[in-house]
């Protein structure tokens, strides 16, 4: 076995980054080609498929706890059949409910929308769109995936221990997450959660450093930074955000691990839990929240920026028009990346934070709405007077803009500390971030998958299934999350599994049922997509032309099914920006075409 991984030919053949004619003739085994592959395209697919598997798991968890929220008093014997003591008597036990909520958050935020989204598209698109044969370090790139895989295995293992996985919410605030006496989920499950996340951070750093160095150093001739497609810029800022913020989470989690197992008091002070007086004094529970949100807020943009980048690209291509305001788009990405680090405490307005400090964070938080507004208006202007083709990717891109507007505007409520006093930790927050970060980024991801699937597998996804998937998902997303804002305005707290005993919060029984039903339908529609995805890999309509969408960027100059190294022969030279659509009466002008003598300037 061992000679398969460290085959000398495999290593050397990937170190060639020159523009010389380069075709791979070495023999590839199944393992080097599909498992321990160092080809960025294969690694991208590995991230995508792992992400899809995680998305099904995470989505299924949400269906389970929606069942509890919609029908708190009914029994579902199947739950006991499937989950044993966790579904005792056909009811979701509180331990199970909180484990489900926690895992849904962790899985979707980190494993699906971080690894599955930027892991997939950074790997696939960076070398292809900048004109490189592979990443700066294909080996570290491979490790990045396998650390993610390891992190996944550790997280999955925590589902099968007797005390269950972590159950203190995806934000794992101590002391709840630090004290095994305080919750079942804070026992072994929490240690596994920390170990898994530590491995995940390693994966993310390996990937991020690779993306940054590849983009900075390995662009093909003529590809100046301002000729990069916006996807690449977005992925670049995403990688920078990750490299700067994930280590802070890592240190925060290590301190938590120490508090849990070594008797330190970083986050613990003055605690009497389950009748037991703990010796810890002098720690600060709020310190963890600062460390957590120093990652946690940039994380939101780590999730959102790649979606924004891909949406910009897809909107421009399918409007047959240049993206409007390329430099403004770039500037707003940059502004968002900077501001992402300066707004974290808006998650902590009601923790007893100094009100003056809070006011600074209000200002910076609402400031971030300005670059967001610029992006929205630029997208709208890109559509204006276009000649729009509604491919499934394009529809998802339009859906993204719609959701980003809706969810972004409710951010103005929550970023304003005065209103946040009332809305903090209510269902309003759930509605807000699911629309703007969850569903919107998911739409960005779908846009990317539908658009680049032909490049990944040399086949098309089925269009009709794509349209059905889009319309159910868009309508469903609004039907689920729009009415939730009203529950939030009524002050219904998050993470309540049954509101019937509350006088102030029990007026939404019918609504909760409705939301549950819609959530199940939307989940079923996602399975339709999953089916389409795997079916089309093998049976989809074959791509016959090299450039099926009529796009300008470099990935469409490669063969329909590019091998490792991407281009047969020399890497093409770039002569122009990637958005010359509809210029001088021509439908599109690829980046590789030299600027003509009589061409108009923009």
């Amino acid at each position, binding site marked *: 076995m061992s000679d398969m991984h460290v085959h000398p030919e495999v290593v050397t053949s990937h170190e060639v980054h020159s523009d010389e004619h380069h075709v791979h003739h070495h023999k590839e085994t199944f393992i080097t080609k599909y498992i321990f592959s160092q080809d960025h395209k294969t690694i991208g697919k590995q991230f995508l498929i792992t992400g899809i598997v995680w998305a099904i798991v995470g989505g299924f968890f949400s269906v389970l706890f929606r069942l509890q929220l919609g029908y708190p008093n009914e029994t579902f014997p199947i739950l006991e059949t499937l989950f044993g003591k966790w579904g005792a008597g056909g009811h979701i036990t509180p331990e199970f409910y909180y484990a489900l909520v926690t895992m849904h958050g962790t899985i979707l935020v980190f494993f699906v929308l971080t690894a599955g989204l930027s892991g997939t598209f950074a790997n696939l698109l960076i070398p292809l769109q900048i004109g490189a044969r592979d990443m700066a370090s294909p080996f570290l790139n491979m490790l990045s995936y396998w650390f993610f895989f390891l992190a996944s295995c550790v997280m999955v293992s925590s589902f099968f221990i007797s005390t269950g996985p972590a159950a203190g919410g995806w934000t794992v605030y101590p002391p709840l997450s630090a004290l095994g006496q*305080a919750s079942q989920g804070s026992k072994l499950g929490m240690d596994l959660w920390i170990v898994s996340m530590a491995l995940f951070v390693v994966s993310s750093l390996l990937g991020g450093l690779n993306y940054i160095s590849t983009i900075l150093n390995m662009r093909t001739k003529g590809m100046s930074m301002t000729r990069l497609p916006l996807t690449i810029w977005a992925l670049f800022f995403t990688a920078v955000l990750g490299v700067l913020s994930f280590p802070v989470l890592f240190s925060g989690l290590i301190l938590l691990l120490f508090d849990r197992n070594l008797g330190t008091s970083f986050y613990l002070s003055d605690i009497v839990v389950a009748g037991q007086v703990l010796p810890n004094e002098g720690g600060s529970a709020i310190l963890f929240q600062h460390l957590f949100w120093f990652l946690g807020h940039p994380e939101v943009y780590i999730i959102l920026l790649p979606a924004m980048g891909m949406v910009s690209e897809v909107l421009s291509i399918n409007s047959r028009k240049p993206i409007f305001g*390329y430099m403004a788009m770039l500037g707003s990405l940059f502004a968002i990346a900077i501001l992402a680090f300066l707004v974290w405490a808006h998650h902590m307005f009601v923790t007893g934070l100094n009100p003056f400090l809070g006011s600074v964070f209000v200002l910076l938080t609402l400031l971030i709405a300005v670059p967001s507004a610029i992006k929205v208006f630029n997208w709208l*202007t890109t559509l*204006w007077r276009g000649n729009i083709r509604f491919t499934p990717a394009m529809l998802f891109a339009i859906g993204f803009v719609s959701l980003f507007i809706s969810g972004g505007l409710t951010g103005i409520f929550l970023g304003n500390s005065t209103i946040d006093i*009332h809305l903090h930790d209510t269902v309003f927050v759930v509605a807000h971030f699911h629309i703007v970060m969850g569903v919107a980024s998911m739409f960005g991801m779908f846009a990317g998958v539908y658009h680049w699937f032909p490049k990944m597998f040399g086949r098309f996804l089925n269009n009709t299934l794509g349209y059905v998937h889009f319309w159910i998902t868009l309508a469903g997303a609004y039907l689920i999350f729009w009415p939730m804002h009203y529950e939030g305005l009524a002050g219904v707290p998050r993470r309540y599994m049954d*509101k019937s005993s509350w006088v102030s919060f029990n007026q939404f029984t019918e609504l909760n049922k409705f939301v549950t039903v819609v959530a199940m339908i939307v989940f079923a529609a996602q399975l339709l997509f999953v089916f389409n995805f795997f079916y089309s890999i093998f049976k989809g309509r074959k791509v016959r032309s090299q450039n099926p969408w009529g796009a300008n960027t470099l990935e469409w100059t490669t063969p329909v099914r590019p091998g490792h190294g991407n281009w047969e022969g020399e890497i093409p030279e770039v002569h122009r920006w990637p958005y010359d659509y509809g210029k001088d009466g021509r439908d599109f002008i690829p980046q590789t075409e030299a600027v003509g003598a009589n061409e108009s300037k923009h």
Partner: protein
Amino acid sequence: MQAFFIVAILLLAFLIIFQIAKASEYVAVLRGEDKVRKQTNKINGFMLLSFLVLGLVGVFYCNEQLKGRILGTPASDHGVLIDRMLYITIAITFIVFLITQVLLFWFSYKYQESDNRKAFYYPHNNKLELIWTVIPAITLTVLVGFGLFYWFGITGNAPKNAMEVEIVGSQFKWEFRYPGHDGPDGKGVFGKKYYKEIDEGKMNPLGQLWDDPANYDDIYVSGEAMHLVVNKPVKLIIGAKDVIHDVGLVHFRMKMDAVPGTPTTMWFTPTKTSKQMIEETKNPDFVYEISCDQMCGTGHTGMRGTIIVETQEEFDAWMATKKPQYLVANPGKDTKAAPQDTSVVKPVAAIIK
């Protein structure tokens, strides 16, 4: 059996959708892919416009259905400000929402692919960029201005005449303490406490230090509602014993975390008695509720407390029925009961560093 049918129906629906999808692909090939593509394009363009119209109708319908079940009138002075800020924000964001969503879907519909149109090459316009940088910036400045003005009022110092109540959260209950009347101007002073003294068995659930005289008249309340006086500012001193909790007072629109080891405070003035609220909401079961708004463990959902807002007289009458915890924990000190030797109380001041 029911589950089986649901699964069977789902599978069948999947199969049908898949067959249609597969067939449509063949039809496309037969009839000419370009022609079919253009037809589907028209359908999707129309769908986008319909989605906009139906969506806006839905927004209106949803509001009609649910607007009566949210907010209600705020029951505190701060609540009035917070609601005002909320309505200003709703108004502004809804206008922006309408404009941008209408443009998005209208442009998509209007500029759908047509053989008669060529896309307009329009890469940038700095004047436009400036307009939509400056206008949002000004709007947001207004919102920040209002917001911070209210924020500093709400989070500023409590008025001098505010009554103080301590509220302590633990899995999964709320406990309260009133400071009595031992201060210089008749206001109470809370006695010191230390968490290692917490011992329910010794009738000291908050860890009060019995050698601090300020503790002698502090009233401990649990298992019943917190009582507050209408139109009298109240400052809550918030603590937690085990994990982070949060004092959520939905009708007063107030919220503050309860953090073990780090006391927090918030103040407000209740402006309506519980009886007034019962009349106003026409709900005989109405009660001010304290919800825990920070995930605190398996019993989070049930971590409920209640508040009764009443007149000063009613409050005083209620308070008169209470006995300081000092006397409960040290029955020997209760002069009204059997007098005993005073040396029973163990000095614990040495513990405080």
